């Protein structure tokens, strides 16, 4: 499906009012992992608002990326409770396994590694999200195994 088709489908589902903007942006990110210029221009046209307004909203939200991301986006919680439970070791293990630093995407475009503020699992840290899935009570080894599983399942 092209970006245009995707946007049209989402607009069909959520409507053309300004209140539809978030679900449409979220729907594109769900599929594409980020909002390309083309996607934002198409959305602006479909909702009949300025492209600047679309970009203004998109650029405000951490999860609405406007730069290309890998097929799988990893977000490791960095807030104090997870900090105290060893998030640094988790990040280190993932950086080593993926051969990238936080903020980067692997060459094969399969993974982007990011950190996030409190994910709401302070009693079961360290924790990470991969796309929408949550993985609490991590050890460095567990984190790497989870990523390997994604690697195997990503075409």
């Amino acid at each position, binding site marked *: 499906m092209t970006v245009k088709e995707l946007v049209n489908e989402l607009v069909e589902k959520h409507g053309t*009012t*300004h*209140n*539809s*903007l*978030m*679900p449409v*942006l*979220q729907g594109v*990110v769900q599929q594409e992992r980020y909002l390309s210029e083309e996607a934002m221009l198409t959305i602006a046209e479909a909702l009949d608002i300025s492209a600047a307004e679309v970009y*203004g*909203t998109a650029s*405000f*939200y*951490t*999860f*609405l990326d406007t730069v290309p991301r890998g097929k799988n986006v990893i977000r490791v919680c960095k*807030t*104090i*409770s997870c*900090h*105290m439970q060893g998030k640094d070791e988790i990040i280190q293990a993932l950086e080593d396994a993926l051969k990238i630093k936080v903020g980067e995407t692997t060459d094969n475009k399969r993974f982007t590694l990011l950190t*996030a*503020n*409190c*994910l*709401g*699992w*302070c*009693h*079961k*840290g360290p924790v990470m*999200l991969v796309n*929408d*899935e*949550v993985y609490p009570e991590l050890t460095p080894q567990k984190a790497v195994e989870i990523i390997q599983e994604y690697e195997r399942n990503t075409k």
Partner: protein
Amino acid sequence: MKDKKLKKVDLIFECNDCKPVEVLEKTLKRDQDEIILDIIDSGLKGRGGAGFPTGLKWKFTKNEDSAIKYVICNADEGEPGTFKDREILSRVPEKIFVGMAICGYAIGAKEGFLYLRGEYNFLLKDLNATLDKFNAQVKDLGLDFTISIKSGSGAYICGEESALFESMEGKRGEPRNKPPYPTVAGYNSKPTVINNVETLAYVTMICRLGAQQFKDMGTNDSRGSKVFSVSGDTPIAGIYELELGMTVQEFVNEFGDGDTKAVQVGGASGSCVPRKNFADTIIGFEGIPTGGSMMIFNSSRSMYNVLHDYLEFFAEESCGQCSPCRIGCQQLLKGIEAVKRKERNPQYLEDLKKLAATMKLASKCGLGQSVANPFTSIVDNFKEEIIY
């Protein structure tokens, strides 16, 4: 009441013969004003942090003359150290939905929304399934009220009620000026009740058990019980529903690891209580209020690192709309780093405290206004750790 024991309660997650919809059916037979009076009488205050009396909020919204009104459940839970709303959403979602429907009936709203933080998207499938069933049941009961879910996209500030409305309207999550308050002009500029997940679940339990049973618990200022999220240096991290009115000491006796040096009550935007104040600090609206976040630190922890973490959090999550908060958060962070590196002398911390006090006065919303809470309480009580 010095040696009052910490009392565990089981209202929110209790589900022995869990049929929240029957509570709705029973409540719909009652007069709207009577329900609101009951909620006022129970003493229930908002569980999202600010602690506004729930019944009054409903009454103000009911009194607004508008054909369109909304009920919104705030499930943006983003305060560091809080995870109780997630647990309520995953274990007893019907209690939340019933609370919303009762509110809709009481104030005359036909539409309800649950604003779920993007970090909890993994709950969507189950929540939507429960909701489909629930909406049909509500219809069968003859009530014109439908709930749907809106997702957030990773912005702590969208938990602030007016930023949440902006987000639902497809805009940047920038808080609005108040007044007007949501009861007058909320989502789509219509009268709106916005309540925390836990608040709405308590509404259901109050309607089921009666106001008296709730009121009998807690203190004059803090009625009832509350769900706490306990984390940090504790052997029993987790979620606990406790009667309000305990001191930090009583809390530490139960949850500490024997070496507790400080408790951060209310998350990053709350206050740090040092050991010497444990005995005479009450957890509640008469002492230090909390949305439920309780982070415990033992003597192996550096309070500089704790404060640094919080300030980094605020600097990242500030919406950037007003300068006291946007610039203030960054300067406080840079400031303690400079003191730590000895580029500034310790006296500089006093200047930073003045900056935090200015932020409290001049910031537009609760985010910028509350940075002084952790800053001043940690700097005042753990100055050596900040400097050396």
